[in-house]
């Protein structure tokens, strides 16, 4: 029974993060695509999370850190298959320039950037999710950040002045 509770807990915390990640991966696609991906990933994960027998004693349950990597990995693999084709014709650009820029990135670079910058995974974990070496993953991350560096992400109003980030304490 405790095993089941663990699984349940994992699902409670993991699903929202996986959705966030999926939404980033599917930048440029409708949001429903992202939710479909998460659903499919959770389905694929089901057996590996619960263990060989659904009512088993829990010896098959992986450690939380491994489960996390496994979950991101399942989602990433599914997304790679699904998003292989060209992106659908874009409608109006989204309100955030970063989302549009993200959609333009090659898939692997988007994965590396999102895992590290958005999901807060370590380089090691991110590399495991990608199934690449740490060096490759870092190189993709660097390329992704370079590609996004053209964006002007400074806060819009009044911040152009040299002292825009000053805060009057009193």
């Amino acid at each position, binding site marked *: 029974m405790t095993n089941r509770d663990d699984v349940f807990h994992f699902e*409670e915390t993991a699903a929202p993060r996986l959705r966030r990640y999926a939404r*980033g991966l599917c930048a440029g696609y409708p949001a429903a695509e992202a939710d479909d991906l998460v659903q499919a990933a959770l389905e694929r994960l089901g057996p590996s999370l619960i263990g060989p027998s659904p009512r088993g004693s829990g010896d098959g349950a992986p450690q939380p850190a491994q489960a996390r990597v496994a979950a991101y990995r399942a989602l990433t693999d599914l997304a790679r298959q699904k998003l292989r084709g060209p992106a659908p014709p874009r409608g109006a650009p989204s309100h955030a320039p970063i989302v549009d820029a993200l959609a333009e990135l090659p898939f692997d670079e988007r994965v590396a950037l999102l895992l590290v910058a958005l999901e807060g995974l*370590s*380089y090691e974990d991110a590399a495991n999710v990608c199934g690449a070496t740490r060096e490759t993953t*870092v190189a993709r991350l660097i390329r992704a950040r370079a590609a996004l560096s053209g964006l002007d992400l400074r806060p819009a109003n009044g911040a152009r002045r040299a002292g825009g980030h000053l805060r009057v304490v009193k």
Partner: protein
Amino acid sequence: MTPEQITEADLHALVDGELAPDRRRAVEDHLLQHPEEAALVEGWRRQNAALRAAFDHVAHETPPTTLRRPKAPATPGPIETGAIHWGRPSASRATRRVDEARRARRKKALLSGLLTLVVGALAAAAIFLALSGGPKSRPPTASAADPQGYAGRAEVAYQTFAQDARAVEIDAGRKGELSAWLLRRVGFGLVPDLSPLGLRFLGGRVTPGLREPAGFLVYERDGGDRLALYFERADGGATPGPGPRRGFLGAIEWRAAGMAFVLIGPVSAELLQAAGERAAAEVIAPQATPAEPGR
């Protein structure tokens, strides 16, 4: 200053928290000397913030109820004859699951709320203890997260030193020595030149900070009013909340190059703002030549 080569990967690793403390220090020192690389790092941090701003809300939405793990395929449905079974056990089990999930989430929210209250109370108590001048060492909870924050520290330093006959440990005549000392102890050795605003540099010293030694530079106006620039390595935590009213002292706070800066003094808000902008610009400006240790 930096014997080993700092690569671009090091800069990324700094942003991503992948560096060991020693290496992190080395890279941060390197950034102080290379503002153009510091600007790169700043840009990547902005990218991270923009990504979070764009997608973080998704993680806080309640996932659609369709988004649930499929049931373990073990139990076959009880009665599947095609008739409508209003009291079908499987249906009620599904609702129960959703209820269970909601209850768990509510319980978690309640717990985290309580936890926040307790932590807040502890932090307030710790600040009270720290401010009432108890001789014991400050408990670790009283960090930069306390509402006094760097500005509060800056004010204590100001009250202690600024009007003292020996306001500074090393005067303006030995600026190079002062810079080297501050760089070594505080991690930041630039002395902004505020003389165009009528603020003459007197000198500086090392003073106790919130967590680490802090730098304290004193400037004087013609009238004798003194302005102090306090800076300490920022811990990257949340910006402390607005400080309390503090008599006639004005204070202005900003962060740059991994440091928290506070400019404090009994001068008009305009002068304070102007001096703050100038100091902030100098601190990150590429043409500002950092004092070499031993110059």
